[in-house]
């Protein structure tokens, strides 16, 4: 397939709402080149919401899955050993030792807050 010269190049547009947000797919637009795609992206898809960053990619640089390839995504639900679900009994065990289990909620709460030790 030769490089066709067309005004109608397809660009996928991604954006971040705030500097701490994850990148989110918005929509696609037609533009003749990257610079044009950039100056049209925000006003086409984010006229009312805040935007902290925009990424664009020409569709011809995207590798997508075929229907056959999507079959490779299937898996069985027998993988409790990978998750905390497979270790649920620990909660009871720790109680026997008069300790609380360090679960996800507890562990993820450790980042930051200066006074967390005192507050315990």
């Amino acid at each position, binding site marked *: 397939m030769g490089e066709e010269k067309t*005004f109608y190049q397809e660009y996928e547009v991604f954006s971040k709402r705030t500097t701490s947000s994850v990148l989110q797919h918005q929509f696609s*637009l*037609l*533009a003749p*080149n990257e*610079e*044009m795609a950039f*100056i*049209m992206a*925000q*006003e*086409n898809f984010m*006229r009312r919401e805040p935007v902290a960053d925009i990424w664009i990619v020409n569709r011809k640089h995207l590798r997508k899955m075929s229907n056959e390839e999507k079959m490779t995504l299937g898996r069985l639900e027998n993988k409790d050993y990978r998750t905390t679900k497979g270790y649920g009994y620990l909660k009871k065990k720790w109680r026997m030792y008069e300790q609380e289990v360090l679960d996800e909620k507890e562990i993820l709460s450790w980042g930051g807050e200066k006074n967390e030790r005192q507050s315990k």
Partner: protein
Amino acid sequence: MSVSQNDLTLENREAITSLLFQLADDDFMYAYRGSEWLGLAPHIEADIASSSISQDSMGHAAMFYTLLEDLGAGNANDLAHSRKAIDRRNCILTERVNGEGYYMETPHYDWAYAVVRSYLYTQAKKVKIDSLCGSSYKPLAEAAVKVRIELYYHRLHWEIWFKQLMSSTDIAKNKMNAALKLVMNDFGDVFSYGNQKLAIEMTKLIGTEEEMKANWTASIEPVFTTLQLELPKIPDSPEKNGRMGEHTKDLDEALTTLSEVYLLDPVAIW
């Protein structure tokens, strides 16, 4: 020294009012011409993007008219809709039609003219707004700081269009160069402060006309050099000076349209 609205002398007030009319009328007419393009741009995505710039500019005009209202010059909507051409202070460039034909029929609007006018007008506005951020009139300085936030996008948007069309096909280059000539013919009053020039410059409401011209030329020089284009020259004495209330018939026609509904009943609430 900066002043707020309360401690103005009479001469000061006249200079500020005059400058505000120039700024307000410029953006009002520029946004109006932009709004005539709605739905007719050469590409749907581009239509949407440039519409935001017209909206922003109308928003800036509204801010300047409100500053005038605060000074007791009249109600902002009245100032925008019911002043006669002779009282308008916008530069000639902003009142020019987009091309032949009335917008309600099948007008021939020229995208090259839209791009060149917008690019060079926005650069001029940027130079003025940068200077106004340090204006001695505090409410105006505060407004300028806000306007500047949106100008980053406007400038980038039109610069990319300008660069790309100026460096593409021969047809495009010819159209762009023809538009550049038209736009520059009208550039003589863009940096004029009209008959309040002395007071406006003396009281440091904004930099001098000469400073603005020099800054503008410096701001477009890199782009023109890259494109191997001759740097455009601002005409010395404009045929008509919009800052003095001298206008073309394009403005008369525009005023008839933009005030058509408003003038059905100027005291009614619309």
